[in-house]
């Protein structure tokens, strides 16, 4: 195992017309090759901004004000356009939330994958076609569907085509940004099963972003939880499940009703407390890091009670 991705004190601001928002605040994390790291948090927590920064896909209004991103020793932040073109897809690929809608509606799906292979490798057309059939088989789409147009496939099939395309150049890191949120539960589970199969056969690392803690606990080796741009907890999935330390992590897990155990009333994340003065991560057990924070009762801002996390 060697470190493939190193994010160090990454800080990103979004500049609006009236105000500047800090979306990511001094986030540091490392990923090992072949590892599945989940990044959880609600909307606006900064998890997608981290992923976009790693792919260098931040919009113009976003600015990396501090910190570094290194991929296998390369400084990602300083890559120029030409270098980026070679690096994206070859080394890192990304599947977006509504990726199934990003296929070209006028092109057969097989041709779209052939195009990727021909643009980035020296393959001949027939080699590329053979490889495309293999890739589609890897996500359990019969090779004869190569001739289908995107509208002839279901949402789940289209999402699988996009995943096959992302794996086409055998990247070392695959970023999945809420890859199944728009899909039905059954399809969602089949797609995650295929991602795991591909990950086991091809050995790439996966950065998996979702707000669904139960999905994340099932798929990931390690999990990071983000809250208002800060990383508040980072731990192996097993420790996260049995021994999560930060109250926000527990609140996020409780935001989804359980399928087993007694039916007890739950409270939403937006009700009750919020967390302030979030410090840098500190180890509480080997590999298990938690950020000290203070909680503030949102119902009564004056009753600030110190709760070390």
């Amino acid at each position, binding site marked *: 195992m060697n470190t493939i991705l190193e994010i160090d004190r990454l800080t990103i601001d979004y500049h609006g017309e009236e105000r500047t928002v800090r979306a990511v605040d001094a986030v540091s994390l490392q990923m090992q090759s072949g590892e599945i790291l989940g990044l959880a948090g609600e*909307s606006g927590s900064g998890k997608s901004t981290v992923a976009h920064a790693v792919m260098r896909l931040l919009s113009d209004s976003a600015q990396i004000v501090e910190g570094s991103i290194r991929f296998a020793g390369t400084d990602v932040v300083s890559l120029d356009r030409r270098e980026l073109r070679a690096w994206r897809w070859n080394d890192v690929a990304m599947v977006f939330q509504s990726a199934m809608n990003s296929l070209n509606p006028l092109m057969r799906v097989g041709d779209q994958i052939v195009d990727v292979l021909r643009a980035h490798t020296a393959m001949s057309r027939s080699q590329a076609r053979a490889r495309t059939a293999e890739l589609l088989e890897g996500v359990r789409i019969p090779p004869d569907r190569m001739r289908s147009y995107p509208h002839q496939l279901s949402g789940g099939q289209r999402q699988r085509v996009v995943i096959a395309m992302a794996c086409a150049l055998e990247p070392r890191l695959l970023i999945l940004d809420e890859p199944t949120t728009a899909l039905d*539960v059954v399809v969602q589970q089949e797609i995650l099963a295929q991602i795991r199969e591909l990950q086991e056969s091809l050995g790439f690392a996966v950065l998996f972003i979702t707000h669904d803690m139960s999905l994340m606990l099932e798929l990931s080796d390690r999990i990071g939880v983000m809250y208002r741009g800060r990383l508040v907890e980072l731990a192996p999935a097993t420790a996260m499940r049995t021994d999560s330390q930060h109250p926000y992590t527990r609140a996020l897990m409780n*935001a989804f009703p359980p399928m087993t155990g007694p039916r007890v009333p739950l409270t*939403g994340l937006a*009700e009750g407390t919020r967390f302030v003065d979030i410090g840098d991560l500190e180890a509480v057990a080997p590999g298990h890091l938690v950020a000290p924070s203070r909680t503030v009762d949102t119902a009564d801002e004056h009753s600030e009670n110190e709760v070390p996390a």
Partner: protein
Amino acid sequence: MTSPQDPHSVSPARGEESPAIEAQNLSKTFTSGSLLSRRRVHALRDVSLAVRPGEIVSLVGESGSGKSTLARCLARLEQPDGGRILLHGEDVLRTEPRRASRRYRSTVQMVFQDPFGSLNPTHRVEHVLSRMLQLHQPDVPSQGAALRDLLHSVGLDPEVLSAFPHELSGGQRQRVAIARVLAVEPKVILADEPTSMLDVSVRIGILNLLAQLRDERGIAIIYVTHDLSSARYLSDRTIVMNQGRMVEGGHTEDLLARPAHPYTQLLLSAVPDPSRRTPFDIEERRLLREDVRRWTEGEELTVSSVATDELEHWILHPTDRALPAPTI
């Protein structure tokens, strides 16, 4: 119309109270395509359901299962091709064939998935709510007090009255949509995936609000969802739909603990469960799918009870198949 062995419409455990709303043998077919290549989709096939006051019934299934079509038929947004919708014992499809009367609409109200699309963006919250009050409760002496009461009952501050929908968060907008529904004092609320477009942080709050409306006002709620864990959290009974049919139903806890139909088992196997970390068995799931197909393609389908009578757990199965033994 209902045969004695049609357990869909048999009363649940809540005594002999008469249903707040009842559907009998509803069917609906959508046709698409041109004159020559007509495609017919059976969105509802012989669906019957009765919901009692103070009860939440979940309709679960994947996209295309017919669960939303059923809710839209009950809201009278779609016209069923056949069957009856009973309100106060009266077949409303016969007495109000073209469009629902104001009386119907002040009894049955719908909450939609997208709270942004269901609120007029050009009007302030106050206008949206007070218009509803004027139409449906013209005798209310103090509009201002009634508005504050409405907002209070959905957990919003009176400040939101002067806001436009775009100035509110998704959760706040959904609460305004529910307040608007409450302004007509309905007996039945049809909630079509009311949380699936909301952020995780506010979903539980909306589910808790629905439970509160059931408990405090005795409103009958039909909750449409593909999320089994929220159905388990919220509902008293759950009905599983597949390809326009109700395939299994029962008390929520019993149904989820002892799923008898392969489609219910398939849905349950797909719910993320942190305590299970075995690889997903794609082959096993394929077999379940195959089972579902054989099961639901049977021409003659009958309904049987799989649990003890008081649990009211039933399943749809082809006549040529032996019933699985109840696993109790």
